[in-house]
């Protein structure tokens, strides 16, 4: 059965473009123009993945509200936020709404689709037994690239797809400095340097929430970042 992707987007043209692209890849796509219609539909049936615009018409933060509702209903449903503004990343992060990824609207379709696939892979991997080959263990860190799951000191860390790939790129070769471009390539995003920096900060914060002494991700000033291996 084809997976269902729900697009909640008030710009008809943008929604149409995504709808066409997703449909071409064999997904079933439902488009909702505002929060109300989306909520009504979600009450009946949940999609397999939701792409939500933050600003929905007059409802400036309608996307956030919708995400919270959806997350409450389905804890494992992948949610991708679309925003027109960079600064909303921080709002989303601050609210800890539990989105799996957030992207700016001008991201290319290829990048967008790569993320959608990654998210579905993660969902699928959770239902399968863990594959030892996909796992990386770096001291207290346990990474599973097929499940996109992260554990630190045996406690799960909830990372977005972008964050996961950045961490993965770093932890794969401990001690190697990864520059920003390499991290962007790994995460399949086109971001400016500052955004990479804020992603790194968010990753550190999420680890710090579990382990206040976490200091494995080191800044190599002028070059990039590296994962510190155990001595």
């Amino acid at each position, binding site marked *: 059965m084809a997976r269902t992707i729900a697009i909640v987007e*008030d*710009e*008809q*043209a*943008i929604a*149409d*473009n*995504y709808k*066409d*692209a997703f449909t*071409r890849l064999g997904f079933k796509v439902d488009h909702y123009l505002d929060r109300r219609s989306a909520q009504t539909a979600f009450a009946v049936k949940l999609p397999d993945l939701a792409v939500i615009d933050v600003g929905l*018409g*007059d409802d*400036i933060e309608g996307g956030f509200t919708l995400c919270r509702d959806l997350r409450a209903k389905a804890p494992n449903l992948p949610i991708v936020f679309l925003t*027109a*503004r*960079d*600064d909303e990343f921080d709002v989303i992060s601050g609210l800890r709404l539990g989105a799996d990824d957030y992207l*700016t*609207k*001008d991201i*290319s*379709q*290829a990048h967008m689709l790569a993320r959608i696939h990654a998210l579905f892979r993660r969902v699928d991997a959770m239902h399968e037994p863990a594959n030892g080959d996909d796992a990386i263990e770096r001291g207290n860190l346990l990474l599973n690239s097929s499940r996109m799951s992260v554990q630190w000191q045996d406690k799960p860390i909830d990372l977005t797809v972008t964050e996961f790939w950045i961490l993965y790129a770093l932890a794969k070769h401990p001690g190697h400095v990864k520059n920003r471009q390499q991290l962007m390539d790994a995460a399949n995003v086109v971001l400016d340097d500052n955004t990479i920096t804020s992603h790194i900060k968010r990753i550190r914060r999420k680890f710090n929430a579990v382990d206040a002494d976490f200091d494995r991700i080191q800044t190599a000033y002028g070059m990039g970042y590296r994962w510190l291996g155990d001595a």
Partner: protein
Amino acid sequence: MKLRQQLALLALVGLLIPGITLYSLQIFNEQAKASHINALVGMAEAIAARLASDDELLQASGLAGSPQIPADQELYSHRLFGDGSEAGITIDGATGDWQALALEPLPLAGSDAFSASYRAVTDNLKTYFLIEVEDTKRHYHQAGSERLATGDHLLLFAGNQQQGLHYFVVRAELPGAIEAVYRNAFGQSVRQERIRGVWQETEQGYRVELSLPSNMTQGPFALAAVDQAPFKALRVAGTLATAALATAGPDPGVIPPATGRLVSNAAQLHRALQVFNRPATRLTLLDPNRWQRAQTGQLTPDNPAAKPLQKLLHWVTKRPQAGWQDVHSGLWSTPPEDASEAPHFNGWTHDHNTLIARVEVPVHRATAAALEARYVGSIVIEQAIMPWQLLDHSATRRLLLSSLLGGGALLLLLIGYASWLSARITKLSRAAGNAAKPGQSLNRALEQWPRLTLNDEIGQLSRHYRGVLSQLQDHNEYLRSLTGKLSHELRTPLAVVTGSLDNLMAAEPGAIGKYAQRAREGSLRLSRIVSAMTEASRVEASISSAELENVDLKQLLSDIHQAYQSAYPQQKFELSIQTAAPETYCVQVAPELLVQMLDKLVDNAVSFALAETPVQLELTYRADDSRGVLIELAVSNQGPPLPSAMQGRLFHSLTSERRTGDSSAVHLGLGLYIVELIARFHQGEAAARNIDNGVCFSVSMPAKYPALSARRAVTSVDNSP
């Protein structure tokens, strides 16, 4: 000069108080000096009255009862009595013993440029004379001559009742011991051994030191120096009548007795004055010829050592100009007619650091016999005081102390206030300087901005500055967010374009047209945004070059109403104009700008207006107390209300929060920003408010009437060259 220094300088005004006090102390001092003189006059008058009443004393001392003798026939001798009554003079021609007595020579009045002087002192036994004669051509007596004197000699008229009165010639044959000779009743030359003396030559002439028994000087007495040379006229200096000498020739045996006398101070008068002795006070009694007849007391001030306060008082007081001069000759000078000309007769003089007050009052002897009181002499009181003494009492001390304290307190207060004031201003200025530093963030400057609690002008200045800074910060904040908003506005059409292009790549051939169309619409939207952005700056440029014209707004609105009607055929417009005098709406405006502004408002109203509802155009006026007539242009429509959060910043550019049904319309909010720019150009204000079922945008501006401007224009023509 820094503010602190300026204020500190100003604070020196506090010194005025002690300054004024010192000045008033000077005035007090003058007053006190005047009253001190009055007190001394009172004392002198009391002494004079006491003396005048003692007739016996006056008689005994020769002040009264004896006939008046002219001053030029009197000689003066200082009488020594009491302790130190020995004159201690040796008749040896040396003058050292005379100098110890500190007497000043008195002149012997002479004729034909012949002058001589004398000093005389009397003790219990003898009277001593030191006579100095100016006569460089000295002639000595020739021994063996029948004449009493053939050369220069002295002539004495002296004696007493027992031995008889004689003219004695004092002569010398050589420098050395003198001979005193007289002719007896038989014409014989008799030598008087009791008159002894030494004759000595001096540079100017000669000097004779004489002594004779005191009892020879009590009665009639006269002295003269005679210059006698062969074949030359006699020259005489002294108290003997020259005419008598000239007729009598050199042998004075037959000359009538002289009427002069030797005057000196009298013990009984001295005793009478001593009763009135006071510390630092000298009492002197003068006879009518101004010979000093008695003197008691010392002119030594009481307590010459000065304490600090007294030093200050000393510094305050002015020193009298006239210097004090003591009298050592026995002859006191005569007071001038106008006493004010010579203050040292009645008034103040100074002797180094000591002030000397002097008063003189006459003594009049009141007798039953005389019709008028007879003048018998004068009492002179001199008193020495230290300059601060008149001021040195508790009142002035209190005054000085309190004014110094008050002045000091005022000074401290003023300096304190000045420091406080300048500290506040410095704080403010430092904060402003910090805020103006390059690289200083406004946030930090605002945080560090001093909070002045006192609500005075400086506090207000601080608050106003803070207001300006926070406005600036708001504006900065706005500019910062502008890029965010702009990227948001641009990203949506950009996403449409890229998404369409991505789809285009993968699309079936039949669908290509759909994606191309979608991409074109997206890029059209982009270009609309860009032109909307540039419109704002175009309007800003045209505003700066806009000129005011006389326009009838009523006409303008009627015209534009019709224009809108044809431009938006789907929309209904209603025009209402408040009735007013015809010239009310004839004002000076920039019509193109005004039309552009109305375009924006109407465009906005039309896009938000509910279907089938009219857009209202309104022209009204009202009188405002401070700004004259205010004209208001309003455009209102029925439709979605303004979000309450947006009311304040609705006219900021790029702020648009309302949604229309048509998603292709651009709502950057630049239109309303332009409205505000044009309203501000007309010194007006733009406002937006929710009305029943809709929104009303209005622009109110003060009416500028042509007449006023015309007058201004004429003035400017006059001024132009």
